[in-house]
């Protein structure tokens, strides 16, 4: 049941593709399935709380020990609920956002592909299965970032995101291999269940570095954070879903998942806390410097991801609780803000923050959603964001003051960014073209749902206690006191919260001068990426012409010489074989031999290309005759056809290059002759050797004996081609097809060049 449900979004891909562009109303109905999944995972969370983690598996690639095995505990179900729940809202929103535009079906289909992959990622039991889903999320993210593939910057961003997160994906694969090598287990359930700790095992530092490379690239941690703001070329529903609520949290999930068996060492704690803290500051800093609404939200997401990462690094009970509450709060408010940003762009045509204002009358519902989300982001009391921040400060009290000060600064900047994104477009004098019609409900309801969820969970903190408590328990491997409450009395933490709010108000009031004064604006990690990219390009531009001369004759020369030298060397070292004892040559066989030799001589001496080709054809027919004489009618038939068709194609080619008559200088011809004679001679000697030492061929006998009983065919050649060695044949026909399209493309290009020049 569980595996099928996890993979069910994949089954909806065709339906989503078909319905997507047809009718907004019907496409919106697709949201019902992820909504049902949310409910299911929610109920499962309850049963997991009582009876412990659930495991289920479906046989898949059993021969390499990878099954579709899934493991559902508090942590994975918390993520699954977020993925399915926000997924439902995004599908609803997306159906309205795209309407019946041409790309709508493609969008919905890719969205469902992502949803299935993300659910698989957070519920996978086997590390290799997790890796596969991890890559699939990266790949669907690539497709969605480059959704408007006619725009060069969308393509560039898509490739950048794929390269950066793909690098991390390789890290994850390597880490999985090392973990399996050192523990013998690749299933999370057994790694967690055995209570293993890798810290005492082999490869521990390498495992940590590789795992964290994966987590840091996926969750856009400094210095890999630059891909996330660039990913904002994706349609806004995608930014809300993949690039704020779910996919970018995969790194957080991975770190949380691995903490029980890889954590609790200075290396682990130090790296995660340090990188997380830096990311938190960098993201918040850059967020308030942006004027593009989506890039601003993206940087604030970077900051929030850093914050969660840091809290997981701190790793105390309070800190882990804080990270999970923050995760939930962030998914709600950031999702809502993104959806509102999308609505703003959809309705006014701009998302430049300096060009938007006073839109509260034109779009009151969106304004309400944005305001609520901004309040949660700023950490106003009653909102879930406030709870998250209180927990954050509380968990950092015992740590060095720099972390606490950093967290306060980042929170203040984040709150400011939240107000700029969620409040400033709707207040003040009207700016930006206000829409004339009512904003459709499909565009506002999902944002309102998310925004109110942030308020509801803040007022009724019990609603997040169970999932967050269960998940924290899953990370720390012990029951966690998960009671949350708004009011703790007058504590230092409350003072810090209030101070942060005052700071937010101050920064928001001076937001324009703050934006101008932000310095430095960039850390240069993206420039480093671009420089690396350019360097690689330059390297291949240097190497390619040296390795690929584009002259078929020189390739052939290299190949034939290499093979000839290898064969020749073997013959010399192994000793020359004896002459075959019996040379019983029949007259008709001699005729075929004469035909082959005559054809070859005539080809060499030919004055025109056409006669050379025809002479080679004669040689080929001679070879075909030999096949026929020695009991290979299949080969003979094929050889006859191939020779004929080759001659035809050559004639057509020479028809194009009629002035292709001049011969190469004699030195070239001498070189060619030497190589040919040596190579042909070596092959002849090898054949004589084989003929003289006829050992029984085990393989040939096997095929001859097994052809009928196993493959129900009497023609061994064909049975080998389509059955025993079908994979080879598949490769060969693929190569043939590729070559054919290559010919087509080459001719097309040269024709175009001739037309232009």
């Amino acid at each position, binding site marked *: 049941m569980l595996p099928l449900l996890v993979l069910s979004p994949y089954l909806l891909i065709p339906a989503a593709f078909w319905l997507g562009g047809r009718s907004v109303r019907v496409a919106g109905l697709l949201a019902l399935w992820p909504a049902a999944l949310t409910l299911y995972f929610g109920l499962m969370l309850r049963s997991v709380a009582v009876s412990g983690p659930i495991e289920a598996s479906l*046989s898949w690639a059993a*021969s390499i020990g990878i099954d579709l095995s899934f493991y559902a505990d508090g942590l994975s179900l918390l993520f699954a609920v977020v993925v399915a729940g926000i997924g439902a809202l995004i599908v609803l929103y997306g159906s309205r956002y795209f309407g019946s535009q041409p790309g709508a079906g493609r969008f919905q289909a890719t969205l469902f592909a992502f949803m299935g992959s993300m659910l698989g990622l957070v519920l996978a039991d086997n590390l290799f299965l997790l890796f596969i889903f991890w890559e699939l999320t990266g790949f669907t993210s690539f497709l969605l970032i480059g959704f408007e593939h006619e725009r060069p910057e969308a393509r560039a961003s898509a490739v950048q995101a794929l390269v950066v997160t793909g690098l991390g994906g390789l890290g994850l694969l390597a880490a999985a291999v090392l973990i399996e090598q050192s523990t013998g287990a690749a299933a999370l359930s057994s790694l967690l269940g055995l209570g293993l700790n890798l810290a005492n095992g082999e490869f521990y530092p390498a495992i940590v570095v590789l795992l964290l490379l994966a987590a840091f690239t996926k969750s856009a941690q400094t210095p890999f954070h630059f891909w996330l703001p660039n990913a904002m070329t994706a349609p806004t529903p995608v930014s809300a879903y993949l690039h704020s609520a779910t996919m970018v949290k995969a790194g957080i999930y991975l770190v949380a998942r691995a903490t029980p068996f890889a954590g609790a060492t200075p290396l682990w704690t130090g790296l995660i806390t340090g990188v997380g803290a830096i990311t938190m500051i960098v993201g918040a800093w850059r967020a308030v410097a942006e004027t593009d609404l989506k890039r601003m939200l993206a940087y604030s997401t970077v900051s929030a991801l850093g914050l969660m990462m840091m809290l997981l690094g701190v790793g105390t009970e309070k800190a882990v609780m804080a990270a999970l509450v923050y995760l939930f709060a962030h998914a709600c408010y950031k999702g809502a803000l993104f959806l509102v940003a999308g609505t703003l762009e959809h309705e006014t045509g701009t998302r430049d923050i300096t060009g938007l204002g006073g839109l509260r009358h034109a779009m009151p519902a969106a304004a309400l959603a944005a305001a609520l989300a901004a309040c949660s982001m700023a950490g106003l009391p009653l909102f879930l964001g406030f709870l998250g921040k209180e927990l954050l400060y509380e968990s950092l009290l015992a740590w060095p003051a720099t972390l606490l000060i950093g967290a306060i600064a980042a929170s203040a900047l984040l709150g400011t960014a939240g107000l700029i994104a969620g409040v400033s477009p709707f207040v003040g004098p009207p700016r930006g073209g206000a829409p004339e019609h009512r904003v459709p409900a499909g565009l506002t309801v999902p944002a309102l749902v998310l925004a109110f969820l942030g308020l509801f969970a803040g007022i009724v903190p019990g609603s997040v206690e169970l999932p967050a408590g269960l998940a924290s328990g899953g990370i720390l491997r012990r029951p966690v006191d998960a009671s949350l409450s708004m009011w703790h009395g007058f504590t230092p933490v409350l003072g810090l919260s209030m101070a942060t709010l005052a700071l937010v108000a101050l920064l928001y009031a001076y937001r324009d001068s703050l934006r101008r004064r932000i310095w430095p604006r960039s850390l240069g990690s993206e420039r480093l990426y671009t420089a690396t990219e350019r360097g690689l390009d330059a390297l291949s531009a240097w190497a390619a012409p040296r390795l690929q001369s584009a002259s078929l004759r020189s390739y052939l020369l290299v190949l034939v010489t290499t093979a000839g030298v290898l064969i020749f060397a073997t013959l010399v070292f192994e000793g020359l074989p004896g002459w075959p004892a019996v040379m019983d040559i029949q007259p008709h066989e001699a005729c075929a031999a004469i035909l082959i030799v005559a054809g070859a001589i005539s080809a060499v001496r030919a004055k025109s290309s056409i006669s050379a080709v025809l002479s080679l054809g004669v040689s080929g027919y001679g070879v075909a005759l030999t096949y026929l004489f020695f009991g290979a*009618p*299949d080969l003979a*038939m*094929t050889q006859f*056809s*191939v020779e*004929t*068709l080759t001659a*035809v*194609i050559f004639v*057509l*080619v020479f*028809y*194009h290059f009629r002035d292709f008559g001049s011969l190469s200088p004699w030195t070239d011809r001498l070189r060619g002759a030497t190589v040919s004679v040596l190579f042909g001679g070596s092959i002849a000697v090898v054949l004589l050797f084989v003929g003289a030492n006829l050992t029984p061929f085990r393989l040939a006998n096997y095929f001859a004996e097994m052809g009928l009983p196993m*493959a*129900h*065919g*009497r*023609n061994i*050649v*064909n*049975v080998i*081609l*389509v*059955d025993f060695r*079908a*994979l080879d*044949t*598949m490769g060969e*026909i*693929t190569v*043939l*097809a590729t*070559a*054919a*399209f290559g*010919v*087509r493309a080459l*001719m*097309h290009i040269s*024709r175009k060049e001739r037309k232009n020049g």
Partner: protein
Amino acid sequence: MTTTTSLILRTGARVLMPLLLLFGVFLLLRGHNAPGGGFAGGLVVAAAYILHFFAFGLDAARRALLTRPERLIGSGLLLAVGSGILPALFGRPFLTSLWFDPARGIGTPMLFDLGVFLVVIGVVLIMTFTLAEE
């Protein structure tokens, strides 16, 4: 390449074309038990169209094919891959042959061979037609 070809060629082509096509299909069908197979059959069918092209010109040959060679390649590859995936639905490894009627040679290897047949026709004809265009 003009259509002013000899009467003998045109008459011969008209008679040979159906025979060659039949022969190609015959080779494909008998291939499992006797000399022949998708590869040889495909080459013969391709040769039939090339003969047609020599006799009646490129456009006539393209029309006679009824579809574009690119489509033949695509559907051939899909058939071959599909015949490999089919057993996976029955829990067998990729490309394991499934037989519905082994005596008559009806099973996934036949589908696979049909795929090879189509790809070979498509490949030869793409090359020939592309080179002959001017």
